[in-house]
């Protein structure tokens, strides 16, 4: 009965269905174009001269990449230095936040302790509180400690990141095999040893996902570096990009587009390789009602 009705439904509306599908594909192609075309235009314009950019629209690369690069580096923007600085800051902050978030979540998942429930609820609450609003106090505090223009304020606070603990906890809830922990204990493994040698390898997919997200998040971070870092030689990539809004580049628009491209390049590269894991990882563990 069910089979009959549903096949009947399908047959009667198959022409309609094909039409409907067609419309959907058109919409999807349009939305994909909206996402890709601006980025593509920027990349293409990075290879064109400023005159070319200002006279015509093109979706195919030209030959002025080297020239734009010479202007960008010649004007003292420091994109290469920015790359180094950004890599250092984002890798350190990301590794720290992944390691300690996993550790905190592991403690919440595996042990029984008095303040467990309060602590867990506290973290859930913190996820919702907009921490960005406390940057002014943070800045003044760092200034008082003499940490302005160092990377410490950009790296150390990553140890306490409630959203990451939340993610890690949701992930561990579904992936942790507790029996392994028990047997490791019987075998005489220390508690931290269990965490390092059993839990971390077991949670590799979750760790990997969190690490990728944190790398991208830290690479993109603008507000804190903009407040904390004052000397040019320590600028991270977003601060270098901000300089492109200056007067030097009013006419050298090819160089600006090259700068934008370079700031996006690592992310586009990682995303092209790992888009499946990244998109899938967004809901990994999280949102299990």
């Amino acid at each position, binding site marked *: 009965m069910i089979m009959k009705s549903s096949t009947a439904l399908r047959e009667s509306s198959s022409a309609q269905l094909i039409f409907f599908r067609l419309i959907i594909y058109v919409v999807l192609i349009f939305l994909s174009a909206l996402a890709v075309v601006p980025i593509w235009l920027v990349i293409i314009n990075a290879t064109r001269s400023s005159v070319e950019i200002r006279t015509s629209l093109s979706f195919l690369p030209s030959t002025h990449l080297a020239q734009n690069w010479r202007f960008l580096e010649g004007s003292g923007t420091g994109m290469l230095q920015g790359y180094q600085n950004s890599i250092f800051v984002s890798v350190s902050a990301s590794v720290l936040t992944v390691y300690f978030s996993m550790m905190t979540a592991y403690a919440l998942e595996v042990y029984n*302790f008095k303040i467990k429930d309060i602590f867990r609820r506290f973290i859930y609450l913190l996820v919702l509180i*907009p921490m960005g609003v406390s940057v002014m106090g943070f800045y003044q*505090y760092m200034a008082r400690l003499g940490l302005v223009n160092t990377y410490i304020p950009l790296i150390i606070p990553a140890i*306490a990141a409630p959203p990451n603990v939340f993610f890690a906890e949701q992930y561990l809830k579904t992936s942790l095999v507790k029996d392994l922990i028990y047997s490791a204990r019987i075998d*005489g493994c220390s508690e931290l040893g269990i965490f390092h040698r059993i839990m971390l390898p077991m949670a590799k997919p979750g760790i990997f996902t969190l690490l990728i997200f944190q790398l991208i998040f830290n690479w993109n971070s603008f507000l804190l570096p903009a407040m904390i870092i004052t000397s040019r030689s320590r600028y991270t990539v977003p601060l270098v990009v901000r300089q492109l809004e200056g007067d030097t580049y009013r006419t050298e628009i090819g160089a600006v587009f090259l700068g934008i491209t370079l700031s996006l390049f690592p*992310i586009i590269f990682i995303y092209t390789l790992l888009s499946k894991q990244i998109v899938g990882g967004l809901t990994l563990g999280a949102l299990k009602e």
Partner: protein
Amino acid sequence: MRGGNKTDLSKSGANVISGGKSRKIGSLEKGYMAYIMIAPFVIVFLVFTLYSVLQTIWLAFTDTVLLDPQSGNFDGINQFQRLFGETIFRRSIGNTWLIWIVNFLPQLGVAMLLSVWFSSSFLRLRLKGLWRSLIFLPNMMMPATVGVMYERLFQDRYAPANQFLLGIRAVNTPIEFFDSPQFNQMLVAYIQWWMWYGNTVVILVAGMSSISVALYESAMIDGANGWRMFKSITLPSLRPILVYTLVTSLVGGLQMFEIPFMISNTGGPRNSISTMFTVMFRKYESGRKFIASAAAVGVIILIMSTIASSIVFFLLRDRDEIAEKKARKIAEKEKKLKSKAVM
């Protein structure tokens, strides 16, 4: 720390042998280890995060100007009074909400439509992974760069956007886009939409995939159409996820910063894209660094997002569940009373 563990390990070993049942190890006592493991988080949280929040709140009640050593005294609620007297700040509140709403409604609408399409077993679309990856891509881009990127694409008479419009003969003369306050606001809203709807799609698809197919099948047998099923099965099942999406978008939206700031670090024509957060940052960056006033803006944003998310939680709470709980409680009470009466 390591040495300490070893001695304790022998104790737990004894437990295993003597206590016998796995419950002892199973419940994973050793609570003290938990304290050691959450210690780094707690210490850094207290020292950096919490202290900064308290410091910000304190700052908002002082007259601190960073480059003025005479300042730093308690100032009551003067900063807040002054803020609400400023036209720019008052306008920035309206701008922030307007831009957020104009970005969020289409975001939710488009994401809803796409996720219904993606998870429909009826349509059986191809290349789902590819579409999802493409529309999610903008979410990964550096917001500061995205701001600069769009600014350059629309910048002036010779910008790519004008070349495109002239090329398809949609206009005869190039448009000076950024002269119009409305254009500025709509562009920022569009960019926010562009960056975030893909994210919402991924979350909604995950939510929809957890709804049991049997529900739809039985509804189909009952002769429900697509819209009806969406309204009475999909939407109610998605409620927790919708609350999550709404609240995170709201909290993030009230902190909208990089995109409008990169498009214009002075707030655009007639301050049309001054958001609360950009006003805060400009107060900090301007002249003598008015950090107390900036902190007051931060406190206002904090209060606003707390109130707004509480309202969302309240309005979208599960009424049936609450009613059920109440009914259960009353039933239990009655039971107790009865059993007492019997005794």
